[in-house]
């Protein structure tokens, strides 16, 4: 990330600045001339989309915080005041609430892309682990944000999730009391969740900087999984990646706007428009859709302690992925067996999401258990063994060769903009 030799400051001010703080050179080397593999497909645009969503959440969140009251008697009504009386308050709140869903959607696509193309392998292990840390931070931030409107689901989600810690032997109960700041979820809980919900996004920003730094040290992976070897294999970040990212970001915003303006309550539980009431438990306590796979794993295990451990393990296991996958070949394009197990894994994750929204009874529990076994077996059995036994397809010598061999013109693999007419 040192100053780039080819950066020539254009103005007197930038020349003055460059000798004191070479920020122009940093931006130039990171986002202008930075070489990016020429064969990146549209799945590689979700990193930029995530950065955009983080910005949206912070900007809307800061303004919402100006009007929100973190007090159990006023929190619900203050959110409704935002919806009714703050100028464009309804827009801010719907952007923020729907934005959380879009953020997770983009993050999950980003992660599945990394898994499909082996983007976590040497030398990108730290890059991947920073991503897992970002996911953890997002989960915590999203959960605490969901508690703030202080509706029925807010209150009971806070109760159920904090109660998970009570499964820890000996110290479980004191930890839960400490988390609550009392003997039940109450005003101190709401206050600390608000404080942390404001803090954590800036921690996320910090880790994102590290994530991008690590990316720019190791360089981007690409659909072949073969490192760029010559100038022919790469194009400059600007304009090539910039314009491609911008186009898909605009398409993503169309999807985002569809939800915000036309079906803003599609992703929100009706129960959360009922003010929190500790005396009435909702019939089904269901978390937001983006937590459902983890929730299904938690409930698939009959023992509370082991269920909580499985829940934690299902996220932490991702951090060990670079070492659990023993294959030397990165991209699933050249791994015929892995590719199939990967798609089954995707279906299992979506299936767990579906099961997380169902009551834990009858066949649902049985299916959730089988899917949970596959989830962990994928990491602990399939990936380590597959690397040893799989016969991979021959790798292309270079990115350029792969692009030419496929008979497509270089750099043109744009799928039709499916969302553009939505």
């Amino acid at each position, binding site marked *: 990330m040192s100053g780039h030799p080819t950066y020539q400051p254009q103005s007197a001010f930038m020349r003055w600045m460059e000798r004191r703080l070479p920020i122009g050179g940093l931006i130039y080397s990171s986002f202008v001339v930075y070489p990016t593999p020429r064969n990146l497909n549209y799945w590689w645009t979700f990193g930029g989309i995530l950065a955009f969503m983080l910005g949206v959440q912070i900007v809307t969140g800061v303004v919402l915080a100006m009007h929100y009251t973190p007090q159990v008697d006023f929190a619900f009504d203050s959110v409704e005041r935002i919806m009714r009386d703050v100028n464009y308050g309804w827009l801010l709140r719907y952007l923020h609430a729907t934005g959380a869903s879009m953020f997770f959607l983009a993050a999950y696509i980003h992660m599945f892309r990394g898994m499909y193309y082996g983007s976590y392998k040497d030398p990108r292990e730290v890059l991947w682990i920073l991503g897992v840390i970002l996911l953890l931070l997002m989960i915590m931030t999203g959960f605490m944000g969901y508690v703030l409107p202080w509706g029925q689901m807010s209150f009971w989600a806070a109760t159920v999730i904090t109660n998970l810690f009570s499964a820890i032997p000996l110290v479980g109960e004191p930890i839960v009391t400490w988390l609550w700041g009392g003997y039940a979820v109450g005003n101190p809980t709401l206050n600390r969740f608000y404080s942390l919900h404001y803090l954590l996004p800036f921690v996320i920003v910090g880790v994102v900087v590290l994530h991008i730094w690590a990316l*720019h040290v190791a360089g981007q992976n690409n659909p072949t999984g073969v490192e760029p070897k010559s100038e022919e294999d*790469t194009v400059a970040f600007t304009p090539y990646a910039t314009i491609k990212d911008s*186009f898909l970001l605009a398409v993503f915003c169309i999807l985002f706007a569809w939800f915000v*303006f036309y079906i803003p309550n599609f992703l929100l539980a*009706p129960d959360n428009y009922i003010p929190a009431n500790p005396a009435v438990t909702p019939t089904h306590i269901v978390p937001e859709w983006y937590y459902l796979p983890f929730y299904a794993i938690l409930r698939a295990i009959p023992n509370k302690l082991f269920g909580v451990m499985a829940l934690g393990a299902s996220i932490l296991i991702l951090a060990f992925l670079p070492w659990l996958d023993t294959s030397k070949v990165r991209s699933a394009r050249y791994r015929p067996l892995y590719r199939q197990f990967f798609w089954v894994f995707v279906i299992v994750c979506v299936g767990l999401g579906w099961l997380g929204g169902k009551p834990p009874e009858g066949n649902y529990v049985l299916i959730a258990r089988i899917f949970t076994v596959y989830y962990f077996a994928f990491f602990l059995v399939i990936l380590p063994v597959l690397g040893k036994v799989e016969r991979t397809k021959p790798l292309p010598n270079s990115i350029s060769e792969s692009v030419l061999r496929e008979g497509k013109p270089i750099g043109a693999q744009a799928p039709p903009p499916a969302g553009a007419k939505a």
Partner: protein
Amino acid sequence: MTVARTILALAVSLAALGAPALAQEHEAPAPPMNKWSFAGPFGKYDRAQLQRGLKVYREVCQVCHGLKLVAFRTLADPGGPGFTIAQATAIAAEYQVKGEPDDQGEVKDRPGRLADVFPTPFPNDQAARARYNAVPPDLSVMAKARGYERGFPRWVGDIFTQYQEQGVDYLTALLHGYKDAPPPGVTLPPGNFYNEYFPGHAIAMPPPLSDKRVDYTDGAPMTVEQYAKDISAFLMWTAEPHLEARKRLGMQVFIFLIVLAGLLYFTKKKVWHEVELHPEKLKPPPPSEYPRA
């Protein structure tokens, strides 16, 4: 590979196992879907319907239910029932609200003003329970606080059809879902009524509507069906007072984004076109810049 295919087939058949369990979940029938003027991307409230709904609220519902998030001034806001400021002021003045302490420190009731909210009919939950044997919930956001399970695959279709009216459809169905007597074999707790659409069917609210109970002067039919629709539409407005502004701005944002995406697509094609035809014209950074040459 067959291993993975087998696992996939197994997963799909397992998912099918879950389907019967899904069907058993609903004991209440799904509320019928009504046509609403405010549905869809160009949806707008029907002013006359909102005014009729307010009339039903004032003559029937407000005996037990409050609207504590709705200020009288909003009755004259654009995108609402379309009252004039004078009309809204007159409506507010018909209510007695708790006043401010006077010089002697005494608090007296005074007529409502535009800035006041619809008063809640009871001072606290205990008072309500003592009188009604239950707490009638505030109706301000009721149209969004109720709904029903749409089930697969309908919920996927809802994304495209923009179906956001579960709440009002449920309220409408609930209001004319009363049965004079529970079906044989069902006993209700004392003081409860049988309602087809209420979860568990035993509802503490007595049937609130009957034909000709509220006088309509605009020729709309004075039936339970019509009352139910009008009050539900009115409650949709109290829950979502900026719905019209939201949908209008949405269309503008949409047109902007589609044009932007189109321009970006063709710009992208042009930028990448040069790479396709003249790879030698590329000016890649010097080899030292490659992260891993």
